[in-house]
């Protein structure tokens, strides 16, 4: 699992309700949304279910986001960089 997570420049993190994958997917690449930290999550996302993020490539911000049985691929360089920094 999380194959490739140990490769250079990649990080895999499990978080609870990190962010809405749908919102992240619609965000322009390279633009983090500081307001997201304070965003009021809809109930169906704030249900305590794990959200797992696999940063596939920190440099281009490509990430796989898993929640429940769903999987979306998003691109967000700033968020990927923040996650990589948090993994230190």
């Amino acid at each position, binding site marked *: *699992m*999380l194959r490739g997570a140990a490769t250079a420049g990649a990080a895999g993190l499990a978080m609870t309700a990190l962010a809405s994958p749908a919102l992240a997917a619609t965000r322009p690449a390279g633009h983090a949304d500081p307001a997201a930290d304070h965003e009021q999550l809809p109930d169906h996302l704030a249900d305590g279910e*794990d959200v*797992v993020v696999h940063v596939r490539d920190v440099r281009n911000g490509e990430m796989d986001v898993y929640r429940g049985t769903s*999987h979306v691929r998003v691109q967000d360089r700033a968020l990927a960089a923040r996650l990589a920094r948090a993994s230190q």
Partner: protein
Amino acid sequence: MSSHREAPEISKDPVADSTDAYAFVSPDKPSTVTLIANYVPLQNPAGGPNFYEFGDDVLYEIHIDTDGNAEPDITYQFRFTTRVGNPDTFLYNTGPITSLSSPAWNRKQFYSVTRVDRWGVHKLGKDLACPPCNIGPLSTPNYATALAQPAVHTLSDGSTVFAGQRAEGFYVDLGSIFDLLNLRPIQELNVFAKALGLMSAAGVNSTEFLNVHSIALQVDISKITAHKRPVIGVWTTASRRRVGIRDDHGGEWTWSGPETQVSRLGNPLINEVVIPMGKKDYWNTQHPAHDKQFARFYAHPELAGLIAAIYAPNFPNLQAAVTAGTVRADLEAVLLTGIPSGIVPGFTNFTGSVQADLLRLNTSIPPTTSSPNPLGLLGTPADPAGFPNGRRVFDDVVTVELRAIAGATLPLVDPSFTPDAAIADISDGLTDTSPGGPYLTQFPYLGVPYDGYDHPSA
């Protein structure tokens, strides 16, 4: 073995390892088809105190293609849940397990059955009890009648289901086959064995007295065939969630994401001896509809060249065909499309031009109830109710496939080819009487699992 430990990755994940798939018209209920998917290979019956079970974290599926496009038109899904009665004992059972509800049985497993088809998702059963593993006469007395038979359930659509431990029905001399294809009965012809002076010997069944976990389903033919299309393609899979994270205290797993296929099985022995090492794990993740990418391994099987070389000079015609680069259209037909009509008189299990590794069963061919031939279509006389028309629990698929790859079926598409006389001697020396116990004559057909007390060192 048929597909036990057949690829590097899945050999490390036995609860998800699809080991054998069977599909046959039920001999005692010919209006039905029995489908069996086996997992968790090579079980030593004495393997306690944590005996074998299905994975709660694995999605087990039996797929059926009814229209020849190698896509699943019907899928039966099986999901398991384990319930521990008393976490404060190390024991699997604290006394004799006399029924499926016995409080002495500390680790029970239950499952649900769901059918997915073009009309939707249909829950056919839930909280269905598995039997315990067969431990021994003290722990699991009267196993067949008190524990196994009550674990045969009727689903809401009238189908019959069983999930639990069974005696391994597949027989094979693994020890000889994977020792440079040294088939014991003809090892005096093997170039390596000949150098050691080894002489003909009887085959040894490597799976004798081993158990396996089976999911068996008996369904009316009308429920799994399309109108005027009696041939179905069957395959089984196991899937796991995409992501798993192990907790660093307690060892619990967190699973996330969609399921992804980690194991599959249609025809026996394919990923074992047809697909090359570098593709085995990949093959397990692929859907049959994409099997054209593997067709060259069927058309030019490595094993054909090995048989010719290792048993040289006894297979000159096979060697010539290999040297000439002959496309094995016979194997492509038998294993990837089914046999078109007109090839074998009165028989077809052709599903169309889509190349896919499926177990193809012509459900209009009645079961052979009197002296069925384990060599199926390659038997003398041919038995069209057997492999490769589906697969029955007792079919000798090792001999059938070895002989087919050695050229026995090549004349079907190339009448100018003469099979080498030595083909008739190809066998690992085993028959349908080689398993340690008998097959059953009724559902679920695979025998009562061997108990650990009486088979402590299997």
